[in-house]
């Protein structure tokens, strides 16, 4: 069975699993979603580095649909691992469409990282956008329809920018995906960079992430938290590694996400802001461009997939059980759901970079790389974002959701499914194993040479502990005002949800009004011409066109005077003509 999947595209396996799950009855679907992703993972592990599978396309092109080097390998493996965890977490779902879309989404994400030519890259890039949109539309809330349309519009823009760049690259004869930093810095370069930056949720183009993820289904948002932005991070590392512009973008993302998360009341929106923040570390790492920073970005992407999805799984499990998404309506969840609380603590400590959890061994690599590259300000600002992570996840979420007294506003509606608990425990175990044994489980697989970073030194250890202990003091001093209240925070999506929408609607109404007026005028004109041509004699009688008369043969009889007049006119014209010609 395993041999059968040797050199078989793991992304295609995921897509086939999705189709199979969608076609089966719910009981079989549960088994397929929980077990079949293992085949893709085993298939991926059996593909040897250096493999480059290809076929001819339209005689001129060679499609390199499966290319494995050390960078694509580590991303594809972690995507398969989380595809497995996500499959287990979501296998109780009744919706066949969601099963298909979630697996196809995982498959297309793997397709992007294994693509070696621009056409395959673009194909899976677009497929990823479409399949993830359905994870939003599958949610029954009325707001999800609009959120899905906005998500699709933004990703269509991103896809079209990449398409434009890819077409230009193909015209130049540049077929393979490679690092473009050697130049030329032409329209293709900027177009692909802009497309990738939209998908990486670079500020200010990040509105789609918070808007879309918070509107997706409970299990859909778990998948979405792990793939779209990480695929874009992979693309930055592959195509734009060393672009200094990205350092500023990454630092801005890290701080912006951490600050907005402090204000947020919706659990998923808060975590979405932390995706923006954590991806900022990766973008900055890609921008610094040293082997240490690129390894830092890669390792943080791997760890982020695990701890962020774990946090999403915990929060969505609580929403699944209580139907509540707002932090200010929750409280006392640690007593009611102790397993979820333990898993959340692991996820929170991981994202904050507490020793023995995976964020500690990945986040600090990028910060240390910035220090080594003599970018002290960058390192300081990334550390500041790290303080923000402690503040909003380790303190705010953990206290108000789990440790604060129960407000009694979230009675249990249904029990958390056992498959959800298994997936959360798997995520928590992986976060802890990588945090405790980074060399064995992570560093040896990093693609840009030896990592050159020792996480467990006295300095690193104590700095993270001090950060946690000290940051809790302002939080507690400000605690009565730290509790979020029922409100939404306006973000950059406001521009296309309010003024841009008003502009589009205004233009649409103008066009509609213009078309209606023109159509009305045209209709009147045509009607009158029809009346005239229907009976020219009636027109000559100068009878009103619009007057509808009952049929009478007298209406179609002309008077004798008209006939004589016509005959005399023709006669005079003939005489005049022949006289002059003779």
């Amino acid at each position, binding site marked *: 069975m395993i041999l059968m999947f040797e050199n078989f595209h793991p992304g295609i396996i995921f897509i086939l699993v999705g189709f199979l799950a969608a076609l089966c009855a719910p009981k079989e679907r549960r088994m397929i979603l929980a077990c079949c992703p293992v085949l893709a993972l085993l298939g991926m592990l059996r593909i040897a580095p250096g493999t480059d599978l290809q076929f001819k396309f339209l005689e001129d092109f060679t499609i390199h649909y499966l290319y494995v080097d050390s960078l694509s390998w580590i991303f594809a493996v972690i995507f398969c691992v989380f595809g497995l965890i996500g499959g287990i977490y979501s296998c109780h779902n009744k919706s066949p469409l969601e099963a298909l879309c979630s697996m196809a989404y995982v498959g297309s994400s793997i397709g992007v990282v294994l693509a070696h030519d621009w056409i395959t890259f673009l194909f899976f890039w677009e497929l990823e956008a479409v399949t993830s949109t359905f994870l939003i539309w599958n949610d029954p809330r009325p707001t999800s329809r609009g959120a899905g*349309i906005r998500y699709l519009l933004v990703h269509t823009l991103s896809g079209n920018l990449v398409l434009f760049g890819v077409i230009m690259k193909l015209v130049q004869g540049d077929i393979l995906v490679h690092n473009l930093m050697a130049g030329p810095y032409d329209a293709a370069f900027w177009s692909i960079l802009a497309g990738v930056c939209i998908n990486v949720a670079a500020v200010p183009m990040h509105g789609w992430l918070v808007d879309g993820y918070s509107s997706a289904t409970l299990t859909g948002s778990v998948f979405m938290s792990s793939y779209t932005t990480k695929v874009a991070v992979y693309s930055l590392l592959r195509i734009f590694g060393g672009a200094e512009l990205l350092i500023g973008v990454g630092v801005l993302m890290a701080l912006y996400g951490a600050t907005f998360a402090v*204000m947020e009341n919706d659990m998923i929106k808060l975590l979405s802001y932390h995706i923006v923040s954590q991806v900022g570390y990766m973008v900055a790492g890609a921008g610094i461009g040293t082997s240490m920073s690129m390894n830092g970005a890669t390792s943080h992407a791997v760890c982020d997939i695990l701890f962020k999805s774990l946090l999403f799984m915990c929060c969505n499990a609580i929403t699944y059980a209580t139907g509540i998404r707002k932090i200010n309506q929750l409280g006392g969840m640690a007593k009611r759901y102790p397993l979820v609380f333990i898993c959340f603590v692991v996820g929170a400590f991981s994202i904050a970079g507490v020793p023995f959890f995976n964020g500690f061994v990945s986040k600090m690599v990028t910060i240390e790389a910035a220090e080594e590259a003599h970018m002290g300000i960058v390192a300081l600002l990334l*550390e*500041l974002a790290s303080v923000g992570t402690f503040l909003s996840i380790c303190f705010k979420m953990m206290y108000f959701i789990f440790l*604060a007294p129960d407000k009694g506003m979230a009675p249990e509606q249904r029990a958390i499914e056992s498959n959800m608990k298994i997936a959360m425990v798997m995520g928590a175990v992986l976060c802890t194993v990588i945090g405790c044994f980074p060399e064995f489980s992570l560093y040896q697989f990093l693609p840009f040479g030896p990592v050159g970073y020792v996480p467990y030194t006295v300095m690193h250890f104590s*700095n993270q502990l001090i*950060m946690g202990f*000290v940051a809790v003091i302002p939080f507690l001093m400000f605690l009565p005002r730290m509790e979020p209240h*029922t409100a939404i925070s306006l973000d950059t999506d406001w521009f296309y949800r309010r003024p841009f929408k008003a502009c*589009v609607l205004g233009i649409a109404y103008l066009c509609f009004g213009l078309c209606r007026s023109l159509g009305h005028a045209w209709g009147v004109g045509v009607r009158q011409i029809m009346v005239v041509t229907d009976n020219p004699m009636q027109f000559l009688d100068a009878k009103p066109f619009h007057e509808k008369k009952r049929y009478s043969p007298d209406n179609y009889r002309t008077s004798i005077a008209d006939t004589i007049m016509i005959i005399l006119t023709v006669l005079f014209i003939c005489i005049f003509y022949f006289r002059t010609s003779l």
Partner: protein
Amino acid sequence: MIDLVGDRAKRFKVIFLAAALALVVCAVTFAMGGYREPEFFLQKPGGMVVFAFVGCWILIILAKLVLTPLLQRDEDYYEKGCDDSDV
């Protein structure tokens, strides 16, 4: 469950405990020679204590006192006065 909002005494106990722990970790690091040859502000003794305290206040003030009044709106802000909430 712990009511730190209403119980001020408990809150101050936790604050003192956190401050004490931070100082202990700082002292142990100093004793173990962790601060040898500092090249960066955060590697100096007490550097992280100052940074985390000030940084945390900056984020709280920015988020809660500056951005919250500026950017927070009612939950139905986008739906209000809008016949078509599709886009």
